[in-house]
């Protein structure tokens, strides 16, 4: 079977990846729930306004801004950090796969997986300048 020659077997990598994803989801969900509670405590009686699209403020759009906002314990910032962790979780899983393919000395799939990682990083970091 492919991938069971040396290093990690496909299945071992899968199990590790499964745990990684679970940790990511639990961390994200905790941040989101804490953030919502903080936000509702301060702003719960305000009126929701989603009818017209205005777009989020700059500090909630980019990784740097979200981190800064979250670490000052703003409700919205903490939620957005949780959502960012959620987006980062599958990306971390792809990065892990590159490592696994490297250990298996599977050059073709190191390249294929790197392409996927580059596209993902472009979408999160590169496309932001427009």
């Amino acid at each position: 079977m492919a991938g069971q020659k040396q290093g990690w077997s496909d299945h071992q990598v899968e199990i590790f990846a499964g745990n990684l994803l679970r940790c990511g989801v639990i961390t994200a969900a905790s941040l989101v729930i804490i953030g919502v509670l903080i936000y509702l405590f301060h702003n719960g009686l305000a009126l929701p306004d989603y009818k017209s699209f205005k777009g989020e403020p700059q500090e909630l759009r980019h990784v740097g801004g979200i981190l800064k906002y979250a670490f000052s314990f703003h409700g919205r910032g903490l939620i957005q950090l949780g959502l960012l962790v959620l987006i980062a979780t599958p990306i971390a899983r792809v990065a892990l796969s590159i490592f696994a393919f490297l250990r298996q000395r599977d050059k073709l799939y190191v390249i294929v997986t790197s392409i996927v990682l580059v596209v993902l990083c472009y979408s999160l970091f590169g496309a932001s300048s427009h």
Partner: protein
Amino acid sequence: MDIISFTTLILLSSLIAGFLGSLTGLGGGVVIVPLLTLVFGVDIRYAIGASLISVIATSSGAASAYVKEGFSNMRIGMFLEVATTLGALLGAFIATKLSTSIIAVIFGLILIHSSYLTMKRISSPKPIVKPDPLATRLKFDGSYPVPGGWESYHVQGVPVGFCLMFLAGSISGLLGIGSGAVKVLAMDQAMHLPFKVSTATSNFMIGVTAACGAGIYLNRGYIDPVLSAPVTVGVLLGSLFGARHLFMAKTRNLRIIFSAVILLLAIQMIYSGIKGRI
């Protein structure tokens, strides 16, 4: 209605959407966007952003269950991810150019298709005995656990599968849904993967594809934290709960009801889109 009641209502609806989506295998995303736009009057751009985030959560949350079984094929998944992530970039880019009415109409049409697929029982094609040269070069052939050992399988139709995956990625990026139906279809029908392998591999791919679209949406300010939070938590918990009850439910009747609901939402989305209300 204040934000506390609004958040609670969205949380409850998302729980139900996630639960039904997981029982029927369609995912919560297909109903979240129509629900938010038609029932809660949310702008479709915020709705798509929130839905996409919930798709990532569902996929990652379900992954550990699939992993234990050992069905997914990492090489096929990763190779096809090249197509779905590029598709998602394109879809998310197009979404920023199209008017919301057109997006609503496209969404409605995709919903009709999903409803049709839910009704129709898709039969898995016969496994292929002869290896395909391209699939062999890409090391796609594998084996999966069956009662009493491992069963090996061969893959074919790589170019068609790749193109279909690009389409699935574009739909996911454009509409904020997982488009798992198209993914499983491509892997089952075009590439002749065994059903369990294609479902598990597709689950992993859905998360990566959605993360790609979500990156763009985040940068464009489509992802509102206060709206996305109850949607994500609700769909995630609902789908985890649904997965536990998968084998108890009478799926046939449920699929009929769910696809009827989807059809109604589809008609409403198209109507509102044409009328310019979305």
